[in-house]
């Protein structure tokens, strides 16, 4: 199987290299063909691997490809761990990536218009874009298929690099290059914690290998570290690693980069900033479940951060008017749901939601992109409306995506979100009450912002200018086919996978447990114990509070932004005005950006200037270096008077000296 796994990883890389270095020679067609071929091959093989796990009981693969280096007894290797969890991630990543590749043919077709006239930076931008997204696929696969912490960090930073390159893809736009620098730096703050976590593992386990660390972890469960007056080693490691996840998976307060990342072209917002890269943190924590299970402190921390993100970031989505930003805040909120599930030890539910979300959120982003194409790159939902009749496929698929997102019974998001809410309500660790309440009411918020956007875009009066309206039409097939192909799993994947994932312990059983859950933490067992099939689950769900909240949100949104809005086109502004300080707080995004800009951005520069001017220039160079040079100069100036050049001065000095010496010698 090693050859298969190598092919899965290397095919996109080869595509990326060919498209990147020979893009000019092979042209657009060549570039998208070669990358789609590479990613397509990966997708097909990933599905093959998953099928082997499902039906043929494929053994877990855990082996090195090559030794990166050996130092001080620790082997640093590049290798693969492929188990059921990996296979699930691989198929999700490659499938969404393939859809995005196809979609990009349409979305980037006119990319030359996005560059200033005569700028060589835009040369072959189409080919370069394909090269980057194929490279991203490679990096993400290396991340999920890693069998050790070092390679995890490699993949972790490599996806960050590609994210940086893609957010700043339109590298002459000031907003884009601000956003990509911000994204990279905020992620680096997370990685700062992450690398310390890895260092702690290296110190206490003397290995980078997952399997060895997991095997030895229970033995370290009671180890205390002499830090901050003593903390448990496992809590320290887990929280440090989770700080990395907070960066990558955009959890409060390291979430600030994700909304800005929308400056990148929409296909990568779907692929990187919704479906795959931002879920790397969720995957990582699930992968590390044998460690997290050993620290309730860390689990509580994870849960509280996740729930905070889920609810409060969702609220911001309510006041956004840029179509991509609404979806971006929705992504933040949904990532919060996944992270909360992890905190409740419902790792399987977190991964389940990761998968369903990958499909419906990629779908929503791509649908938003389709709308943006039709609207000639106007992204303001206040200037849309009535697009339903111009773009039927986009409309229908967006509706499906929205229903899946709010957890409409039967859609994929319903299963995953209900499972999370149920699991969290069954959790007993510190913070679970808080998390449970926020997640439940988060459902209302989700439904409100989703359908606010949906109705403003697709229903009601057409508010765009005449020129745009005359040119409104459905997007080409390369755009709509991926929408349809993503809509299918958005509806059905939950129905078909909930049973193996959450009920039959597909991920938590076998000789090798991809996910480990300790007995006292098993918050999903309630769901499994009362499982009577999908229908029963849906019926049960329709009696619960989340269902009423979702429906309340859906109908509320329909009432406000469809019925009422038709009569009063100023309604949205009026509602926001009525919100007063609350609206302002939301529009300010709780002030995170201002704070960071002022304290870290401005503060860092002020400190740098102070150190440079005060330390280097004034003290070291001024006082010490040039100061001693000047002192020497001054001293020399004094001593110089001794060398007058007059013979009689020297003669006198000699006589005086002679007399003095004689006095001393004679006197002694």
């Amino acid at each position, binding site marked *: 199987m090693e050859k298969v796994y190598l092919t899965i990883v290397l095919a996109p890389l080869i595509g990326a290299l060919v498209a990147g270095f020979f893009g000019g020679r092979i042209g657009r067609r060549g570039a998208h063909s070669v990358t789609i071929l590479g990613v397509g091959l990966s997708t097909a093989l990933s599905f093959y691997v998953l099928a082997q796990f499902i039906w043929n009981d494929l053994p877990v693969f855990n082996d090195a490809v090559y030794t990166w280096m050996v130092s001080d007894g620790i082997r640093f290797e590049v290798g693969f761990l492929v188990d059921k969890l990996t296979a699930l991630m691989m198929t999700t990543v490659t499938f969404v990536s393939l859809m995005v590749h196809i979609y990009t043919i349409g979305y980037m077709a006119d990319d030359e218009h996005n560059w200033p006239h005569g700028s060589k930076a835009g040369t072959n931008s189409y080919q370069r874009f394909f090269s980057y997204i194929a490279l991203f696929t490679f990096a993400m696969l290396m991340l999920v298929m890693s069998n050790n912490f070092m390679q995890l960090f490699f993949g972790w930073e490599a996806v960050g*690099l590609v994210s940086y390159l893609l957010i700043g893809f339109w590298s002459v736009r000031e907003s884009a290059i601000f956003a990509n620098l911000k994204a990279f730096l905020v992620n680096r703050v997370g990685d700062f914690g992450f690398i310390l976590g890895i260092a702690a593992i290296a110190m206490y386990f003397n290995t980078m290998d997952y399997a060895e660390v997991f095997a030895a972890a229970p033995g370290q469960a009671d180890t205390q570290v002499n830090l901050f007056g003593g903390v448990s080693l496992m809590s320290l490691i887990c929280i440090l690693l989770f700080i990395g996840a907070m960066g990558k998976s955009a959890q409060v307060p390291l979430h600030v980069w994700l909304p800005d990342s929308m400056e990148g072209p929409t296909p990568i917002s779907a692929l990187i900033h919704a479906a795959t890269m931002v879920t790397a943190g969720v995957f990582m924590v699930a992968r590390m479940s044998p460690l997290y299970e050993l620290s309730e402190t860390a689990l509580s921390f994870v849960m509280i951060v996740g729930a905070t993100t889920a609810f409060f970031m969702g609220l911001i989505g309510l006041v956004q008017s840029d179509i991509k930003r609404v979806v971006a805040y929705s992504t933040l909120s949904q990532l919060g749901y996944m992270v909360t599930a992890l905190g409740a030890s419902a790792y399987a539910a977190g991964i389940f939601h990761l998968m369903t979300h990958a499909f419906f959120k990629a779908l929503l982003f791509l649908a938003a992109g389709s709308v943006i194409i039709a609207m000639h790159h106007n992204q303001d939902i206040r200037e849309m409306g009535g697009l339903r009749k111009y773009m039927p496929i986009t409309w229908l698929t967006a509706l499906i995506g929205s229903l899946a997102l709010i957890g409409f019974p039967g859609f994929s998001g319903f299963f995953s979100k209900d499972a999370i809410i149920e699991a969290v309500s069954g959790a007993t660790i510190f913070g679970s009450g808080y998390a449970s309440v926020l997640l439940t009411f988060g459902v209302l918020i989700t439904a409100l912002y989703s359908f606010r956007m949906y109705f403003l875009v697709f229903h009601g009066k057409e508010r765009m200018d005449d020129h745009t309206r005359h040119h409104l039409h459905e997007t080409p097939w390369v755009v709509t086919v991926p929408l349809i192909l993503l809509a299918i799993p958005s509806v059905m994947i939950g129905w078909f996978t909930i049973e193996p994932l959450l009920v039959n312990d597909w991920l938590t059983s076998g000789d090798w447990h991809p996910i480990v859950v300790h007995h006292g933490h098993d918050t999903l067992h309630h769901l499994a114990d009362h499982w009577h099939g999908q229908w029963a689950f849906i019926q049960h769900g329709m009696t619960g509070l989340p269902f009423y909240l979702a429906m309340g949100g859906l109908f509320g949104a329909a009432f406000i932004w469809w019925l009422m809005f038709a009569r009063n086109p100023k309604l949205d502004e009026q509602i926001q005005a009525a919100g007063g300080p609350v609206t302002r707080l939301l529009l300010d995004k709780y002030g995170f950006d201002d704070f960071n800009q002022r304290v870290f951005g401005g503060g860092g520069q002020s400190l740098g200037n102070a150190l440079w001017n005060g330390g280097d220039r004034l003290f070291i*160079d001024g006082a010490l270096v040039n100061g001693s040079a000047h002192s020497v100069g001054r001293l020399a100036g004094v001593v110089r008077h001794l060398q007058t050049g007059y013979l009689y001065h020297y003669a006198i000095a000699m006589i005086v000296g002679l007399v003095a010496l004689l006095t001393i010698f004679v006197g002694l």
Partner: protein
Amino acid sequence: MESVFPLLTLVIWLPIFGGMVVLASGDRDTNLSKWIALGIAVLTFLVSLGLWIGFDSATADMQFVERGAWIPTFNVWYFLGVDGISMPLIVLTTFITIFVMVAGWDVITYRPSQYMAAFLIMEGLMVGVFSALDAILFYVFWEAMLIPMFIIIGVWGGPNRVYATIKFFLYTFFGSVFMLVALIYMYFQADSFSILDFHELELGMSAQVLIFIAFLLAFAVKVPMFPVHTWLPDAHVEAPTGGSVILAAIMLKIGGYGFLRFSLPITPDASASLDWLIIALSLIAVVYIGFVALVQQDMKKLIAYSSIAHMGFVTLGFFILFALLRHSGESTGAVMGIEGGMVQMISHGFISAALFLCVGVLYDRMHSRQIADYGGVINTMPWFGGFMVFFAMSNAGLPGTSGFVGEFMVILAAFRADFWFAFLAATTLVLAAAFTLWMVKRVVYGEVKNEKVAALADLNRREVFNLGALAAVVLLFGLWPAPLVDVMHKSVEHLVAQVSVCKLPAAQAADCLLARPAPVAFLAP
């Protein structure tokens, strides 16, 4: 074991005599002189590869040893040899010199043959420093090295070159006179100038402390460590591109090499009691200099400060050993720390060279190093932009580039000694990314800033060769550092064993911070 073929002699003297030939050929036929110079640089590199190929990484002994009488009266020998610590540095020297030749090809119009000759002579002297095993021979190479660099900055430098050269010269000279005193003192103790004999020398604590401080003054200036670093930004700013490349890529490494060859093995007990000083200065270099680099307006100054911050990792890695011993009683992690520091030195050689070449590319076209004069360079120089982003990412320690390897190893090693060491060191993840990528944002990205930027021409073949070759090695050692680390293992393990043993005379045994077991077996011949 003495070498049959004088390979090291060849690597030292080939460029020195070659440089003289280039000098003699003069500027009558500039092209001829340039080709001779390049030919010699390439030949020297190829010859030095023989060191790598013939190197036996299974032993910590000195290899390619050559020994001949030089000044018998004072027992001074022409004594050469390399181990896993010096060999990679020699190959780095000969490798980087090629790029200096190529970079100066069309750019240096004032006395080009002398320019090239100066770098060739410089190359031989630097190889001499890395391979000398006799203290006087070392000292001669060490000081002689200043002369070509002094001339390079003084003749081909920028407007303020006189201040910079004097500052550079006095700073480094100030450090090295104390070293000379220490070397002479040890000669009287050991009755030999052999550095290997110095390693065996039993020294009392006060003598060790004085010797340690003398060495520290010499090496700290070269590295440079805070607070004796302020000559570096000035020297870089005034130096021509090639001068900056050699300065950053090789000369700074000589300081780091000195710690491994002299300070640690000769004065282990003083190192053990004063390691806090080095660690503190190293961490200050990472954090303090990181912030200072952030606000630089001049690209060369920014990269110079970045070099100081990166060299902080080198000294931190080298001196983490004693904290490890104190913390856990074991030296686990020390090998990784030292190897990490070594990898960081080699990698920084590539990356800083590449970054200075990048600045040189811009400077040759616009005659400005000010960040504010640039903006949107990618619109006219997309290939250059790609390289610049790549090397900036390497400078920020992105995994997959060689810049990551050393930092990663040092952070891992430092964590074993003290959480806070690793914590402060790891701030470089944010700081280095901030100052490097912010510069990239302002210089490379954005809209075309002015007419001059609009008129820029992209890289020519010569520049693509330079940057492309460096990018290739940065990637190679980032994706597979094993070959580099493997040649060091034995020598570094030997060093750690050597340094973990107390060297104080029996009378002072009570003061030993280090273990005092029986002499380690492999010290015997």
